[in-house]
Structure formats: C-alpha cells, structure tokens
C-alpha cells in the first residue's frame, strides 16, 4: 500500500523536529534544531524558502487555513512563538516570548487562533483578533506539555504532558476553556495526542510507555483500543480522513515508523504491505 517515493533533501544542518503539509498538500514545511523553517514545493521537488527563526531548536510548526494566505506558526526551545506570513518573502507578523521552552503549537482549524504548550505546563492561546495578544494562559499540566491538538471544529483542545495525563479542554462561546476530561490511562510521559480528523470523540495518544491508546470520549472516557509498540511513541499522525494512522517512535536509539489502517469501530490494524 505504501511505496517509497522521492526523498527531499531537508536542508537542515541538524535534527528535524516537525514536518507539516499545507492545506492543499502543495508545500511541505519542516523545522529543526538549527532554528530554520524550510519550505519545499512538493510538485517541483525543490526547496522554495528557508527562514531563519531563532538560534534555538524549533520543535513544532503549524500551517494556518488558506483563507488567511500562507501563514506558519512555530515555537522554539528558547520560548519564542512566532508567526510568519508569505508575502513576497516570508515575513514575521507577530511573536510572543515565553520564559521557558514552547514545545508544540497548533492553529485552531480555520482560525488564526494559536494554541501553544510549554515546558512548565502552561497552555498559551494567541489570537489574531486581539493582535496576537494572549487570549488565555493557564497551567494545564504539572509538567512539560509535549503535544496538543484541536478537534476538527475547534471546540475541543487536547493536551498531553510529562505528568502522564491527557486533558481535554472545551471551548464554548468565548468563555474560558473548561476542563472536560482528564485521562489517566498512560503509565508514563504522554508525548503526543491527536484527534481523529472526522470524529470529535476519537482521540489517540502515545508516549514513553510504548502504548498507543485510542480513546472514545463520551460521558466517560473509554479505552477503545490499546496497542503496545514497545518503543517511545513520539508523534502520531492521521491522514486526511483518519483511515490511516502513522506512529513514530524510538527504541534504543532506533527510529521506527509504523502505519496502521482503520478497521471497524475505530480499531486500527496493520496495513497490507506490498
């Protein structure tokens, strides 16, 4: 089902930490420890931009919805959240300096509303409509926030942390985000959390305990499925409609990428390889 296709020279001088396609899949952006964001044109197979952001590792990046043009947000180990827009060149539109490392950023789907998770357990929300001023900032976790994810309609934000917890925050009409679920199923650091791109109540997570967990959010949170990968799960990515799921992990210094396909009732199983 998966066949290797072209390799893109990343142009990074050290580790890459995140890659994201834009909305239409034409451009791929990457960020890494060298403090650069590189943008590649996927069809032309060439790098089209190289943006120096910081002298510090960049852990995460997020494309905005195309109704705002090409906008990228990123965050760095030294605590800067910055937002860039492609005009003739990429131009910094706004930035915010946090005291500690900011590990993950994601735009709310369709909005210029950025959620960021920090190493000291805070979630920071930056809002274009407030000229990128902080909309809310609150202590969401006891420890490092490693990952966060909006659901598809922007009503829920899931965060996961080194405190082994996943929390789901609900947003209702400009009110302060309310804690809706606390999920305590992981035995160790939770590194990433992702909503199913179509289903508001399906949430997958993974972390240092090596387990991929598919949660069903209802009145209670039900563990829909648990798969043991015997590796530190770092990143989970869904495809466009959530029928494929790729788990990225590390075990004894070896990086592993495994892809699963959705079966019945949001269970995921191995794909047929050929």
């Amino acid at each position, binding site marked *: 089902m998966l066949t290797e296709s072209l390799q893109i*020279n990343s142009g990074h001088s050290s580790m890459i930490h995140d890659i994201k396609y834009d909305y239409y899949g034409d451009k791929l952006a990457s960020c890494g420890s060298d403090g650069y964001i590189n943008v590649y044109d996927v069809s032309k197979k060439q790098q089209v931009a190289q943006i120096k952001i910081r002298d510090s590792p960049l852990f995460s990046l997020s494309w905005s*919805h195309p109704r705002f043009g090409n906008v990228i947000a990123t965050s760095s180990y030294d605590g800067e959240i910055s937002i860039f827009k492609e005009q003739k060149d990429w131009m910094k539109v706004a930035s915010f300096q946090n005291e500690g490392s900011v590990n993950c950023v994601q735009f709310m789907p369709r909005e210029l509303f950025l959620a960021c998770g920090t*190493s000291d357990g805070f979630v920071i929300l930056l809002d274009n409509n407030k000229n990128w001023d902080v909309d809310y900032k609150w202590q969401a976790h006891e420890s490092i926030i490693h990952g966060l994810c909006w659901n598809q309609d922007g009503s829920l934000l899931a965060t996961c942390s*080194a405190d082994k917890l996943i929390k789901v925050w609900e947003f209702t009409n400009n009110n302060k985000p309310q804690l809706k679920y606390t999920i305590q199923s992981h035995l160790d650091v939770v590194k990433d959390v992702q909503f199913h791109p179509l289903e508001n109540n399906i949430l997958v997570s993974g972390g240092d305990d090596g387990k991929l967990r598919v949660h069903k959010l209802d009145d209670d949170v039900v563990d829909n499925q648990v798969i043991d990968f015997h590796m530190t799960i770092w990143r989970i990515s869904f495809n466009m409609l959530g029928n494929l799921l*790729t788990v990225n992990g590390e075990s004894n210094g070896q990086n592993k990428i495994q892809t699963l396909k959705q079966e019945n009732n949001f269970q995921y199983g191995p794909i047929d390889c050929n």
Partner: protein
Amino acid sequence: MLLKTTQGNMSVWSNLKSQSNLLVTAVNDQWGSQLQFNSFNLGQKNTSTSIIGTVTSKDAVSCLAWENFAPETYPMGLVAAGTTEGYVALYDANSAINQEEESCVSIIDQLYEGPVTAIEFNEFKPNLIALGGQDVLIADIVKDIQNPSVFGPGNPNLHEDSSITAVSWNKKILHILASASQNGLTGVWDLRNNKPIFSFQDSSAVSNKKVSLLWNPEIPTQIAVAYDDERAPELQIWDLRNPQGPSIVFSQVHRSGINSLSWCPNDHSLLLTGGRDGQVVCWNYKTQSVVSQEQLDFEIADLKWSKRVTSVYSISSVDGQTSIRSLPSGKEGYAPKWLKPPVGSAYAFDQLASFKENNSAIQTYQIGKSDPDNIFESFNAFCSVDAEQNRIQLEMEKQHDQQYTQYWKLINSVQKEDKKEYLATLGFSVQEITQQTENYTGKRHAKKDDQNKKKNQVPQRPAIDFATITDQDADSFFNDLTNQSLNKQQQTNTSRNQDVEIFQSEQVSKNTNWNVGVEKIIKDNLIVGNYEGAIDCALKCGRSAEALLLAYSQSKEIFEQTMNTFLTTQTDYFLKNVLKHIVLKHPDEIAKNYELNTWKECAAMVLNSDNTGQFHKIMEQVGDRFIAERKDEFNALQCYILAMNGEKCIKILVNHNNSLKELTEAIKLLIVIQEYSLSESDVFDRLFDGLILKFANYAIQHNQYLSAAYALNFSSPDCQRALELLDLLYKGNHKDRNIIQKIMEKPAFPFKYEQIKMGIVKQTQAQPVHAPNQPVSRPTRPAVNQHQHQEDHNVRQQVQQNPNSNAAAMNNPFGPNVAKVVDDPVPPPNRRQVQKPAPPVKTAPPPNQPKKQEPQNIQPPPFVQEPFRQEQQPQTVPPTQPPPKHHVAPPPPPPQPQQFQSNQQQTLPQQPFQQQQHQQQIAQQQQWQQEQQQQNNQQQILNQRAQQNAVQEIKQQTQQGKGVPPPPAPQRRGPPPPPKKQ
C-alpha cells in the same frame, strides 16, 4: 528551578513507572537516621513534599540505593541503605510506605569495619548489589535474602590500602563493574572471570579525596569520573579503548571539589555535577559544553537525576536539606532529548512524508489507491456519461442484483415517459394481451391502439367527474357492456384462456323466455311503465346489462343510481374494488384497496385510466402502504420511483448504505432520481448531501479523488462541507488533480478570506520585522470572490470614515481603546465557528448589469500606514453576491412542475390496455371525452405553450448567465460533462 524542598543528606529516586514521583531521603542526626519516603505533586502550590512513609535506622546512613526487585514480593522494590557501622539494611519500600511494623527485610552485616561508602544494584540482575567500603564486595540476594552470599570482585585487589568511594555497574554489559578509591584510582572488574581488567589513576592523586564514578549509559566503554579535588575539580570521561588519558576533560567551571555526579537517564548526553562551591552544572559531553550552571548557597553533598521524571533532579546539602529542582529550560543552546522529537510524519492526500533522526532527507511515500470490486471505476464511468438516458442505459446493461435492475428499469420508463415502457417494466406486454384478446373475441384491437397513438399527441384532459357524463358517453359505455355480454355468448368458437375467468363468475340468467319468472316481471313492469321496478328486478336476477340499459334510457340520475347499486352489490373482489373505482374514476380508492401483491396491475390500470395526473399520488400511496403494512422497502421504492417522489425514495435508500457497494448504487439511483423528482425537498437535499459526503469520504479514503469529486458535484449548494471538499479536491496535490481540473469548472473558494493582523512583539526588543516601505502584496489567490471585493471596499470605506481612529491606531498601537473603536461597529466573529459563506441564490444576475462593486484590485491599507495592526474587516456586511456555486457544466434545469405536467399530458394518453374487454368501455369513453373537449383543450394548449415559452426564456437567461464567468451561475446541481479527453 526549585520545585520542592524536604530534609535529607542524600536521596534516591524510585525506578517505578507508576510511582516516578517518589524519592527516598536519608535524614541523619545524632541518634541515627530516618529514611523518608517523599511524594510530590508538581502541580500543587505547596513547596514541600509529603512524607508518605518513614523507616528508622539506629545508625547513620552513608549511602542509598533503590531498585525494583522481585515485584511479586516487593511491589515497590527494595531500598538498600549502607550505614556508617559497616552493614547494609534492605527495606521493603511497600511496607515502609504502608507503615507496617517490620519493613526491614534483611541486614547484611559483617561487611566492613568502617562505613559502607558506595552501593549500587545491578540493573539487569538486581539481586547483585555492589558495595564499596574498605574494598569492593558483591552481595547476591537471589537465594536467600536473609543470608546473601557476599564475595569480592576478584584478585588482585586494585584498591589496596585505600578505601572505596564509588562503585558502578556497567549499563550494557552486566558482568562489568567499576570502582574508584580515595587514592584516585579507578578499576574495572570482570566478574565472569573474577579479575580486574583495567585501571587508571589520576596523575595528581592525593589521598582522602572522593572520586565519583559512573558508566556511560549509552557507550559501554566510557566511564565518567569526577574528583573532589580543590586544585583540579575536574570531570573526566575515559574511554577504555583509549587508556592513555581521559577522552574529555571538563574543568574550570567548579571552583572547588566536585563531590557528586549523576548521568542523566533520559538524555544520555547530559551529566550533572555538584560541588563544594555550591554550583550545579549540567554538561553536555557530546558537544563538550555547559548546558546550564546554577549557583546555590550551600555546599552540595549529593545529587541525583530522577530516573523517570524528565528534567527533574534532587540535590542534598551537607547540612541535611534536600530540594527537588528542574533543569532550567528554554535557555539558548542545547535542548534536552526529551523535548526533541527525533521522528515524525505528515500526510497530504495520497502522500506520506517522514523524517528520522539519523537521516537528513525527508522520505516521502506514495499511498496506492484501492478499488474494491471496481466500484469506483464504474462510478466514474457512470458519472462521465453526459446524458441521463445514457447513464440509465449503462446501468440497465450492467449486471446488478435483481432489485437494482428493477429500479433502473423503472427509472428508465419514468425517464422515457412512455406508457409502453411502464407497462413492460411492470410486467405487462401490450402485444401479448392484445393477442390474447383477439384470440378470444375474434376482433382486431390493434387498430384501436394505432388510433390511440395518434391521439397521444393531444394533451389529455384532466379527470372529469362522472356526474357530468353526457348521453353519448353513457351510450358508449352501455354499448360496450352489451357487446361484452354478446361476445360472451358467441365465444363458442374461440379458445378459452385464463382471462375468461372473470366472465365465468358473472351471474347471467340463461332464461330467454320472457314470459316466465323474473323475466316476466321485468317485462310486465316495462309494459306498465314501471321502469324502476324493471331495473331493480333485472339487477337482482343478474341481468345487469338489461338493468343498465333501462336505466340509461330513463335519466342520468336513475342510470347513476343503478350503476352504484350494481357496483356495490357486487361480491366479486375485482369488480368491487377495482372496476368500480375505474368506472367511478376514484383511482385513489384503488390505491387504498388493491391487493398489494399485485400492485403492478394497479399501477398499470391507474396509468391507463384518465386520471394519470394522479398517477404519482397513487403510486406514492401504494408505496406508503407497502411501508406501513409490510415494511416492504423493495416494492415501496419501486412505487416511489414511479411516483417520482425523490424524498420518499431517499428515505428508503438512506437506510441501505452499509456497504460501499450499496452506498454507491444508492447514489447512482439518486443522481438520476433527483433529476425527475417532482418536488424540491430540503429533506431530500439534506439526506442526499449526507450520502454524498459519506461516499466522498469512502472515495478519499481509497484515494479515489476523482470519484469523490464527481459525487460531490451533485451535492446541494448549501452543503458547506461538500463545497470545502470539492475545493480541496480541485486544488489539492494528488494524482487525480489534473483530470479533475480538466473536466470540472474551478469551484469558488468556499471560505471567507481574512487578513492576518500584525502582532505586537512581546517582551523582546522591538525589532522591525519587515522593510517599512515594502508594499505588501496579497498572495495570489486561486479564486477571487466577490464577497472579498465587497469587504475590501468596506475596509477602505471604513478607513476613510474613521480617519481618527486610524491615526490613533498608528500613534498608539498598544492602546486597547483603539482596538475597541475600530472593532466595536462589527462584532468579532465567533472564532469557534466556521465562517460560512452566504447561501448562494439561485440565479445569476444578468451579465450586463453594472456591478456595484468597486474595481477589483483594491489593496487593503498597506502595513506601512499601520505598522502594528490591520483594520478588522467588517464581518456583517451582507454580500450582494453569493459565492458562485461550484459546477461542472450547465446541467438541465430541474424539472419545472408545470412544464412537466404538460409533457405528461402530451405523452401519457397512450392506452395499450384498451383491448381488454373491461377497459374497452372506459377507453372509448375517454376517446369521446377527448373529442368533446378538444375545443376546450385548445385554449389550454395555448396556455401551456405560453408557459413553456416562459420556461424557455428562463432557461436561456440562465444559460447566458452561465456563459459569463465569474461567477458561474449558481445552479442547483447537475451532472458533470464527460471528460474532455480520455
């Protein structure tokens, strides 16, 4: 960063996954020592840990270790405490925490005369405990924890005449042990062979200094040593492969002796050292740099990374205070491993990209498309056919399950609007029946059929009430009845067949002698002029024809009354429930009463009665009966198809989409059904959109983007999700993009464009982020939508109207009031919700109508004028132009009800059932009725033509509108044209 404080001269962390926030500290005082089990919660505000268990030792503790061991017996592992009195006590952590009386499980004594200075469990075999004191010892508790075997590492003793300060098990090779002694010597032991295999000595060796020692957890040949040496407070890393000297030396940071060392278990690049100078230094040995350096106000005695809580470590001071701290994060330079994803991936359509730590290239993967049972391929073929008729033909020729074949046949007949087709589909062959009739009656009926065909060109009259029956009409009817009874008597020379059964059940008197019996009474009545009596008698004795003849000769009222009596007194089911209603022209009564098993007869009969105008209504009623009485969706759906009722069809089909195949068949049917559906229905749209989205999702999941785009084209224009997906498929980078762009019109961008604002750069030096005079151009937009022009216009207007606020914004970009002034007139959009474009209206404006919009390329105020913020764009301006409806090609407009009716009346009067005897009468009736009313009808035809012309005009207008892009005329929906090229 200080997190928590507690007491303790030294500490050790839990290695339990589930209890990683546990720390044991040893608090020494003059009376001995107390082991405290500290638990902490980083999120809580209090700064001290909570003590969840204590163990008292009568002697001061000099070293500590904690390891998981025999979890079934010791679920929280064993804490080993070496004492100043030369013995080791082993405690069950679980019973210590539960405050059970005896938590000490073993005392290993008679080890040393002096204190135990170093202790470490082997991680692979935690039954092996390495000990340091006067010399190196290993205690093995595997057989008997009370009486462990204790042995030395081998001979010769490298540390003769010196005492041990550190022991460390190799982290990769379980039988390798290292030890360090006060004389500065470090030795490595091979316990399998029980001998020293390596040693090195610090050249500036002085006695009585503490040497800390740890194996590199990653590279098993490397060992780190740190010296409590005021003159050379160094951290050295030795590699056994290079024994001449240390590979790496860190010096010049600590100002006094280093007396503790910890290798970070979660990032093996990092080492932590604590010194008598009160400094805590985090080193990255790989980059040979200092990651962080913290000056504390006390002398450090002990320091340990948490085993499982990343970035957290504990520090104990020489005066017995312990604190829990975290590595200061976010300083420039090295980011610890636990924050840096080494691997990741991203999806776009049929592509997956991924990166790995050891590869600077991003690998992309192509995801193949899948097409179970060629469902998508055949769907594409279906959609690529341009005309409805061809689509139907395509489906009819295909191998289907029987039910689908039947549906398509029915649709075909509906589409052709040909009664013969209807009848054939319903299972009646006109030819066959004609033949049978001719055989029976010996009379040719085909000619009649021809006549009817000619009459098909004439629009049929609406149903007329029986009360208006003319004499001629009744005469014809009566004649037929007579003929029928005559024919029956002449039937001797014709072969009997099953159709004749009806005749057999009639009660016709055989008595032809009018001078006896009832016949005489009838005759007598006639003679005396008592016609009503004669009629009653005739009816009663079964001489229905005579009764009706008589009644006809009298008056309309009497005839009607007689007929009613005749029909209601019939006990024959068919006569009572079918024939009666045909004669009385109450076809809906047929629908209510007809035996459902033979509903097709009913359908055919209604079709042939002159009430075809009600045909759809009646079929709908029959369908409803199937649902209500039998839950028979198969037959109900057939009725609804004939009824041309899209809403009822979809309500059934919507329940049959469990498999992709079923869903696809349903969508194909509905694509055609919606074209013929007589009424527009929001319910239909809503349900159909749901099915289309479901199908599109399936298609996209199988990477069949073309199929998804084809299907989405049939969605209603107010289905936002469909518009979004169509836009995504049209512009998205996937393998079907070229063909989709070739065969489809570019859909309008289904979102509202919005301008990003300039933010305030917080807490950093203000730096210009772009050249101030650089004009800001908008990104090229794939589709310019008029909505946006309107907004631009409004932005400009607003700027002009509010010059003051604009100036204020320039002067004081931080002022919150400014933002208010500008934002207030327009409520900010609820950012939680999608900004939906205004619902498109149905018709485009005439192309030559001057647009109200300003020229298209108005730029928003460039950033130059407003370095810090942009005007908020007005959100509430009602768009005068809707976003154009996505569309493939100008489809035929939806059937106009009026137009449809006129078509019907032109084509439906073909009546192939006339040959059957009972209907003959009615047919003839219809004929003369038609002739009679032809004159009236002409006026009607004129009216209809006028209506048709009007429709034509609208059509032309719409098409003209379509010809002028942008925007394409908003159309309801329709089939895409065939690919231009294949």
